[in-house]
Structure formats: structure tokens, C-alpha cells
């Protein structure tokens, strides 16, 4: 019998380690690309200040990268230690993108990050620029493969369950890579990292401008970050809409929970709930304030399509649960007898097998064979209810993430406007705001992760494998011990990150370290009239 406390502790441990790890990831994804942008300006103009900028932000990138790697490595092992049933079930499919991530993206990234940080005196400027671009590419490719793996959990394509091996087998790597969910998730997550990094660079630059230190350095960093952040925020909002549309088509329980939809909508009037207090227990709102006519076009991109509500989705799940129970019982029979009749019985309902596995949680003694006719309606009721993720968490995590996204858009828009007009120092409020906003994009990314992963519940592989069937059979004591250990170690990592970031941000850039103007390598080369020849260099 599955110990549900062990499952909950395993979930808590994974959530904790993932949330800690994700404090570092967005900055790595975005800062690597900002470094490439800054170094591009250095190579084009030949102005040493851009080299100083690349080196300074590169140092902060290095600190973040090292701690991000340290917190990320343990997560891959957790799949084996804490989620061995899951790893057995989908290891062939899930392991492939993770292996490619390690061998291709992570090796690319970690090899070239050394050259980027230590190779300034050993590489030509174009070669160093190429290295910086490769680091940026490697970082984002790393995220791509992880999110392809995650995309499979959200929308399992490219694989089929094999009753002989009792696991999912690959049918198409191509389908896995080009999965609609993986695509939408990658672009949204990666660009959210760009927003985090832009706010980080802009906030620290604002600190220097407010303190009248490193002004030339800070103004340039601020300008690049503000424009980078403004366009990235516009992109992340647009791509978030695409991801929502994808969820509407592929994960209707998630979109219903995000919008707190207890009943199927009546287009086009249906209001979008701006604020509400959803109560999961009674499946109703304590109160809600909505904007009429907004929800239908927002989610469906039409004025006529209804969005299925939670109560109706539970009803839709009921026949699947009954079929799923038949499928699992036939599978057990096939495992024992290998008879063609048992296989045929399984094949008849195999698409609903996951619902049968989910029903096992509510069967007497977690044994589907023990369900009597009298038990069945109760088991189906409880299983149907369990197919819906926690609505309160989903509803509010989404709204906090979205509100933060629009706040970033406003901050970046004002910042870019004042920077482009060279009026930043006359507007200290925007500098203060930029500084105070530094941690918020990372927080928004964390809420985004909660929306994605809480919304996938009760599944580890959507529709195929329930979370409660995925964990290893550890003892509660073992999990508590490792959970506390992880929490302590990861808190130390966060403390180290904050200490080092504050320390080097306070010290500031080594301006003047490279004072001699370099001939420009771009269109404005040294032998033509260009930036490298301006008298004010």
C-alpha cells in the first residue's frame, strides 16, 4: 500500500528544491543573453567601458551560475531516489531530454563559461564574443531540454504505454521535441528569465546612479537593461497568453482552476474574475469581482467558445474512471496470465488507464479488485473530485504572477523612456523603483512554476500516471531527514548568493581597468570614421 505521507513529503521535498533552484535559473538564462548584448556593443564600438560592463556583469553571472548548478544537480538525482516509480514508468522518455541536456547544453555552457570569464587575454574580441554567445545559447538550450521533459509531463506525446514492459515507450522523439506545450513553455520561461536579468542589471545600475557612483557605467547598463526588459516583458505577456491558450486546448482542468471556473462558461458575457476567494471544499466562490466579456476572448481567442467548468469536467471524468478501473484490472490479469483476452480487455480501455490508477487511492485497501458495486459510486465520486488541482492556489498564483508582469511592463516603459531622454537622474523615483523591483521577477517566475506544476496535479504524467503512484517507498523518517537537510543546505546556498551578490555589487565595476580604446571590429572600424575615433572616448 502506498504511504500517502511519504508521497506528500516527497512532493514537498521536490517543490522545495525546485523552488530554491529556480531562484537562480531565471538570472542565468537572461544575464547570459544580456552579456552577449553588451559585448556586442563592445566589439562594434571598441569602447572599453563595454568591456568593463561585460566583465562586471559576467562576474555576477558566474556567482549565480555556480550556485544554480549546485542546486540543480541534486534534482536530477531526486527522480531516482524519491520518484523511482515515476522514473520506471517514463524513464525511457523522460531520461532522453535530460541526458541530452547534460551532454549537449550543460557541457556547452559550462565549458564556455570558463573561457568567457578567464579568456579575455587569450582570445580575440570576435572569438570572445562568439564564446559569450555560446554560453547564452548553452544556458537557454539547457532550459529547452528540461522544459521538453516537463512538456511531456504536462502533455504526454511521442510515447505509448507498453503492457509487456509496464512502462511508457518512445514512439517519436520529434513529437516530444516539437510538443505544443514544450514549445510554449520554453519561450515563456526563457523570456521570463530575460525579464529577471534585465531588472537585476537595471536595479543595480539604479543603485549606482542614486549614489552618483560609476555613472557612465551605470547609465549604459541601465539603458541596455531597460530596453532589453521592456521588449522581453511585452514578449513574456504575449507568450503567456499563448501558453494559456495551449492549456485551454490540452489541460482543461488547469485552465478551469486558474480562472476559478466552477461551471462551464456562457460566452461572450462571462466575466474574468479579477479578485475572488475560491473555496475548494464547497466548490464555489465566497465572493468574486469580475470584468464582463473579458474571459472568453482572453482564453479561447473567440467570442463564442465555452470554457469547461470544474463541475462539468468532474462529470466528464466519471466514465473515464470506470473504464480506467477496468483497464487496470485487465492489466493485472494480463501481467499474471499473458492471455490475449486480458490484453484485448486492456486495449479496449487503455487510454483511460491513468484514471484507474488514480482511483486506486480511493479503493478499499488501495486495491481496485476489492471495489464492490456498493463502493463504486463513492470511489468514482472521490476520484472525479481528485482530478481537479487546488483552485485557490492556482487562482492566486496566476493572478500574482500576472499582476507582477504588468507592473514590470510599466517600470520598464518608464525606465526606457527616461533613459532614452537622458533624464534618469532627474527622476529618482524610477531609480528607486528599479532597485526595489530586483527580486520581483524571480518571484513571478516562482509563481509561474507553481501555476504550471500545481495545475498538473493530480498527475505526474498528465492523464497517465497519478502523483500518488509515482513516489519511492521510503520511510517517513528518511524523507523528513533529507527534507530538513536540503532546506538547510539550500538556505546556505541562498545566503552565499546574497552575500556575494551584495558584496560585488557594492564594490562595483573596475572602471578604468581597460582604458585604452580598442579599434572597433564592426561596421565602424578604426580606419573609417566611427565610434572608436570619437574625441570623447
Amino acid at each position, binding site marked *: 500500500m502506498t504511504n500517502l505521507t511519504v508521497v506528500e513529503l516527497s512532493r514537498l521535498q521536490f517543490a522545495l528544491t525546485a523552488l530554491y533552484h529556480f531562484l537562480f535559473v531565471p538570472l542565468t538564462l537572461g544575464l547570459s543573453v544580456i552579456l552577449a*548584448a553588451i559585448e556586442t556593443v563592445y566589439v562594434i*564600438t571598441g569602447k572599453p567601458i563595454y568591456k568593463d560592463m561585460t566583465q562586471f556583469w559576467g562576474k555576477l553571472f558566474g556567482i549565480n551560475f555556480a550556485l544554480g548548478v549546485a542546486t540543480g544537480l541534486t534534482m536530477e538525482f531526486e527522480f531516482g531516489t524519491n520518484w523511482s516509480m515515476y522514473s520506471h514508468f517514463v524513464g525511457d522518455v523522460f531520461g532522453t531530454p535530460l541526458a541530452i541536456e547534460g551532454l549537449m547544453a550543460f557541457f556547452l555552457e559550462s565549458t564556455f563559461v570558463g573561457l568567457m570569464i578567464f579568456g579575455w587575454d587569450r582570445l580575440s574580441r570576435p572569438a570572445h564574443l562568439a564564446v559569450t554567445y555560446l554560453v547564452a545559447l548553452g544556458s537557454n538550450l539547457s532550459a529547452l531540454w528540461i522544459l521538453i521533459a516537463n512538456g511531456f509531463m504536462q502533455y504526454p506525446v511521442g510515447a505509448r504505454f507498453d503492457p509487456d514492459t509496464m512502462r511508457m515507450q518512445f514512439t517519436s522523439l520529434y513529437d516530444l521535441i516539437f510538443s505544443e506545450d514544450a514549445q510554449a513553455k520554453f519561450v515563456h520561461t526563457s523570456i521570463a528569465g530575460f525579464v529577471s536579468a534585465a531588472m537585476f542589471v537595471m536595479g543595480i545600475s539604479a543603485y549606482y546612479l542614486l549614489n552618483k557612483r560609476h555613472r557612465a557605467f551605470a547609465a*549604459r547598463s541601465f*539603458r*541596455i537593461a531597460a530596453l532589453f526588459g521592456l521588449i522581453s516583458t511585452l514578449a513574456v505577456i504575449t507568450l503567456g497568453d499563448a501558453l494559456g491558450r495551449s492549456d485551454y486546448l490540452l489541460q482543461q482542468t488547469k485552465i478551469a482552476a486558474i480562472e476559478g471556473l466552477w461551471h462551464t462558461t456562457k460566452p461572450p458575457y462571462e466575466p474574468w474574475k479579477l479578485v475572488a476567494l475560491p473555496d475548494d471544499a464547497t466548490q464555489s466562490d465566497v465572493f468574486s469581482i469580475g470584468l464582463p466579456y473579458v474571459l472568453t476572448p482572453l482564453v479561447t481567442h473567440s467570442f463564442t467558445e465555452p470554457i469547461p467548468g470544474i463541475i462539468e469536467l468532474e462529470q466528464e471524468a466519471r466514465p473515464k474512471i470506470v473504464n480506467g478501473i477496468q483497464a487496470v484490472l485487465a492489466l493485472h490479469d494480463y501481467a499474471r496470465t499473458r492471455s490475449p483476452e486480458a490484453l484485448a480487455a486492456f486495449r479496449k480501455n487503455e487510454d483511460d488507464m491513468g484514471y484507474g490508477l488514480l482511483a486506486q487511492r480511493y479503493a478499499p485497501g488501495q486495491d481496485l479488485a476489492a471495489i464492490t458495486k456498493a463502493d463504486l459510486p463513492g470511489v468514482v465520486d472521490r476520484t472525479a473530485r481528485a482530478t481537479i488541482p487546488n483552485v485557490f492556489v492556482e487562482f492566486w498564483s496566476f493572478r500574482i504572477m500576472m499582476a507582477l508582469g504588468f507592473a514590470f511592463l510599466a517600470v520598464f516603459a518608464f525606465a526606457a523612456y527616461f533613459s532614452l531622454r537622458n*533624464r534618469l537622474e532627474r527622476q529618482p523615483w524610477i531609480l528607486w523603483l528599479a532597485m526595489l523591483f530586483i527580486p520581483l521577477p524571480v518571484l513571478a517566475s516562482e509563481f509561474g512554476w507553481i501555476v504550471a506544476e500545481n495545475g498538473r496535479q493530480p498527475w505526474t504524467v498528465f492523464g497517465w500516471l497519478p502523483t500518488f503512484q509515482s513516489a519511492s517507498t521510503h520511510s517517513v523518517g528518511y524523507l523528513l531527514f533529507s527534507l530538513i537537510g536540503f532546506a538547510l543546505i539550500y538556505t546556505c546556498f541562498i545566503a552565499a548568493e546574497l552575500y556575494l551578490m551584495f558584496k560585488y555589487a557594492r564594490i562595483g565595476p573596475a572602471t578604468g581597468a581597460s582604458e585604452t580604446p580598442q579599434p572597433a571590429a564592426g561596421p565602424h572600424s578604426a580606419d573609417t570614421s566611427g565610434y572608436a575615433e570619437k574625441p570623447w572616448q
Partner: protein
Amino acid sequence: METFIKFVALALILALALFIAVVAGDDGPWYFAWLVGTTMIVLIAAAGAVLLETQSPSGETGSEF
């Protein structure tokens, strides 16, 4: 000869870009959007810095940011 090699190299890059655009455009529209979008973001951010160089003299003093 050097010009010819450059021409061939650039033609190959162009062909590769078109190939990626066709494949990604059909099956991976969001991946394609990421490639184009990230390039645009980098270029616009870099252009903003280059613009700053034309707006005011550099240096810690004597200029307003």
C-alpha cells in the same frame, strides 16, 4: 579567392537559416519566434547603447544621464 570563400560561407549560413525557418515555421513556430525575438531583443538593447553614445559625451562628470 577569399571573397569567394566568404560568399560561399555566407550563402551556406543563409541556406541553413532558411532551412531552420521552414522547419521551425511549420512544426516549431514558438521556437522560431524565440530565435527571431531573442535576436531582436539583443539588437534593440545594443542599439540603445549605441544611441546613448551619440546623445551625450561619456564620463563621470559633465554629462547628464
